[in-house]
């Protein structure tokens, strides 16, 4: 039997980041992960650190603050996690999109974010392999990219140096509460961990952990599939996203792209991510298929079709792999970073859907401040689990 100030459940990017920021404050913390670290969603995703796909206001602010924390992490962590800040580009297909994009950019610029519209000649000068009919774009100067698995490994090594203990291949069986209903211990298949503080960072599995203390966590797995291309010449310089991605993400009913029913059905929208390994990833898809992580040929075909639509030159480049991951989806597209009033000592940091990598430092920082009772760097009411109560 061992005692800890805090026990974190889940060894993905969120759990590891929480452990890192807690350990930095000198808190005695343990992490419990059922498999290897970075073996769930954090190894089946891309490495986006984007404000590009965020709603103006708090959503953007929170992500931008996380981008600033990434700059600190690069200095704090000796492990190279392939951080690059080349900015990102939205590509625009139609006049209608151009109009929506202009409104969006106007709001974001007013709030002080480095975004601007690009006209047709400018975007084609910038990205010469782009399909000829693309009428313009948006440049987002601050957007960045990381290797998510390397980020997890780097943070975990650093957290261990700070004294954190990581129990991988360890399964949480139950969470024990005292007579007053407060957290008392975490029971694992390797023994008991005594603690008054538990942080549930189990992502798509967070509801299962929530059930152990009798609370409902409204997170659903949403599958996203990606294609990996072979090493090749630089097809595109930066992260390139079709503007319709934002519509696919938020499921805007008033806007319809001119795409086939299949692409619509699988929520396919073009996302291009060049990696530091000289290849690139192609996303994205969105589907509710339970906990299934098998790739489907229909989605692969749709992703490839959409990729060629924007970059015809890709037709001769090889796809070497496809993979699928489960994004922890919440109806209002905001993560749950919250204490739980009904269960003193129980915290949740989960439900980031496709933003987990980008929001990981901010999430770790916020939880570390909440646990130590400090003022948080951002107001956290919007992220509270209480927003789901009537």
């Amino acid at each position: 039997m061992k005692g800890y100030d805090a026990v974190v459940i889940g060894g993905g990017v969120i759990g590891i980041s929480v452990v890192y920021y807690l350990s930095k404050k000198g808190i005695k913390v343990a992490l419990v992960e059922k498999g290897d670290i970075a073996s769930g969603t954090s190894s089946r995703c891309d490495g986006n650190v984007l404000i590009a796909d965020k709603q103006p206001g708090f959503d953007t602010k929170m992500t931008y603050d996380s981008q600033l924390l990434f700059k600190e992490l690069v200095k704090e962590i000796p492990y190279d996690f392939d951080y690059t800040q080349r900015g990102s580009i939205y590509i625009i297909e139609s006049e209608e999109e151009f109009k929506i994009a202009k409104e969006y950019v106007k709001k974001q610029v007013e709030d002080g974010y480095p975004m601007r519209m690009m006209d047709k000649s400018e975007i084609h000068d910038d990205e010469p392999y782009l399909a000829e009919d693309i009428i313009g774009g948006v440049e987002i100067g601050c957007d960045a990219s990381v290797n998510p698995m390397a980020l997890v490994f780097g943070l975990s090594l650093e957290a261990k140096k700070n004294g954190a203990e990581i129990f991988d291949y360890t399964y949480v069986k139950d969470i024990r509460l005292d007579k007053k209903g407060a957290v008392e211990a975490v029971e694992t298949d390797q023994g008991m961990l005594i603690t008054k503080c538990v942080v549930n960072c189990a992502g798509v599995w967070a509801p299962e952990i929530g059930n152990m203390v009798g609370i409902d966590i409204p997170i659903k797995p949403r599958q996203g599939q990606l294609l990996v291309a072979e090493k090749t010449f630089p097809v595109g310089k930066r992260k390139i996203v079709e503007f319709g991605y934002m519509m696919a993400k938020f499921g805007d009913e008033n806007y319809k792209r001119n795409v086939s029913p299949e692409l619509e059905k699988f929520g396919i929208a073009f996302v291009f991510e060049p990696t530091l390994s000289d290849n690139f990833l192609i996303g994205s898809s969105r589907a509710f298929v339970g906990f299934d992580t098998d790739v489907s040929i229909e989605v692969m075909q749709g992703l490839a079709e959409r990729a060629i639509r924007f970059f015809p030159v890709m037709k001769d480049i090889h796809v070497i792999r496809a993979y699928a991951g489960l994004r922890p989806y919440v109806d209002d597209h905001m993560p749950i970073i919250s204490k739980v009033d009904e269960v003193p000592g129980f915290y949740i940091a989960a439900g980031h859907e496709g933003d987990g990598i980008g929001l990981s430092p901010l999430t770790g920082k916020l939880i570390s401040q909440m646990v130590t009772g400090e003022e948080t760097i951002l107001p956290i009411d919007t992220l509270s689990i209480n927003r789901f109560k009537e």
Partner: protein
Amino acid sequence: MMNKKDDNIIICRCEEVTLGEIKQAIREGALDVTGVKRRTRAGMGLCQGRTCEKLVQQIIKEELGKKAEEIRPSTFRPPVRPVTFGTLGGK
């Protein structure tokens, strides 16, 4: 016993991963082929581990003193062999 010089041998040719890097990954917690892959990129390249997978398995076996059958292979995912975006997405 492998000497220090041997650590520079390339095990994964596609991603140019050395024996030394793979041993480091095992020291950092990798217990199977996928664990090594996620930490080093061994097996992530063009051949998708067809060349190095058995070697990686062998190294894990030696480093951790396990039996070969205890070391899980990596997950195979489509496509079975590289296919162009054109073939995949063509109509």
